[in-house]
């Protein structure tokens, strides 16, 4: 499926390039890639926004400060709404997740920038981290009673093995669906953008009639870019909400 030179290759944007090599670990190359670079940029940007926003500490917030305050209180309200008062301990974790996913998603929308969250390795690591945290918190807080999560109340005894099996499978599918949702959304959105942009290029190559025909895909590209902004924010939000919902199971296994 390697795109030829005259065709737009929609997959090329996801290639990971080594920027410089740091060394070798056990025969494996250990390099600073463009993925790592954009992760650092995202972290630096979110740090800068919050640091510059909280620096003035004005009673009447300025523009920067109100953005930072909104950002903070949005996630704070979300965590309080889903996890309740005892979920305060998880607020820094959820906030970091949300900020990281949001900034990497938005960075990826800038042309020629790399979308970190379109790599399954990144989203898979985040999802695995969340689910391990759920297990650790649940087992630490409730001990073996945590497995009551798989035994719902009020189920007839002869149905219980099947229900438990389904509950266990759905629990194990959570990290898979959590990581694939973010990865798939970002990947699919960026592929669609590139495919429509490719239509413009190939139509414009046909001459004057093609130029007029290329107006259609151009409008589509603009519209899809707007949709992708929505999707980028929505997926970061959904990722954070689902992390909260899964953590709620760890705090209250009896539902």
């Amino acid at each position, binding site marked *: *499926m390697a795109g030829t030179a005259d065709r737009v290759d929609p*997959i090329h944007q996801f290639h990971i390039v080594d920027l410089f090599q740091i060394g070798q670990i056990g025969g494996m190359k250990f390099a600073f890639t463009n993925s790592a670079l954009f992760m650092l940029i995202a972290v630096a940007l979110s740090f800068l926004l919050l640091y510059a926003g909280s620096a003035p500490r004005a009673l009447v917030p300025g523009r920067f400060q109100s953005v930072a305050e909104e950002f903070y209180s949005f996630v704070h309200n*979300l965590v309080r*709404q*889903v996890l309740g008062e005892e979920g305060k301990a998880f607020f820094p974790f959820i906030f970091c997740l949300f900020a990281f996913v949001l900034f990497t998603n938005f960075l990826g929308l800038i042309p020629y920038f790399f979308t970190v969250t379109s790599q399954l390795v990144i989203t898979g690591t985040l999802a695995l981290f969340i689910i391990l945290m759920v297990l650790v918190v649940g087992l630490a807080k409730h001990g073996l009673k945590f497995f009551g999560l798989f035994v719902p109340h009020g189920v007839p005894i002869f149905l219980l093995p099947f229900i438990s099996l389904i509950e266990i499978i759905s629990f194990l599918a959570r990290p898979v*669906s*959590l990581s*694939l*949702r973010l*990865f*798939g*959304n970002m*990947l*699919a959105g960026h592929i669609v953008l590139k495919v429509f942009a490719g239509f413009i290029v190939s139509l414009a190559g046909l001459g004057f009639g093609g130029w007029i025909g290329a107006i259609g895909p151009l409008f589509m590209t603009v519209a899809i870019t707007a949709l992708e902004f929505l999707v980028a924010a*929505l*997926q970061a*939000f*959904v990722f954070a*909400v*689902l992390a909260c*919902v899964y953590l709620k199971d760890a705090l209250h296994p009896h539902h």
Partner: protein
Amino acid sequence: MDAEAAKMIGAGIACIGMGGAGIGVGTIFGNFLSGALRNPSAAQGQFTNALIGAALAEGLGIFSLVVALLLLFVV
């Protein structure tokens, strides 16, 4: 049949599953909207739930997309 052609057809068939996700997300937001128009004061509190439901429904459609991508680029 050529294996390469079979891969392409398989990827195309796998993507039909995305239509199911479209139906699911449409049902969720349609029902949310019809509920919200009946009782607008309660709508704000349930918007997060609607988004979670849409995300869960969409995630299943994404699985079929991933299967299609696996057929195209990995198998």
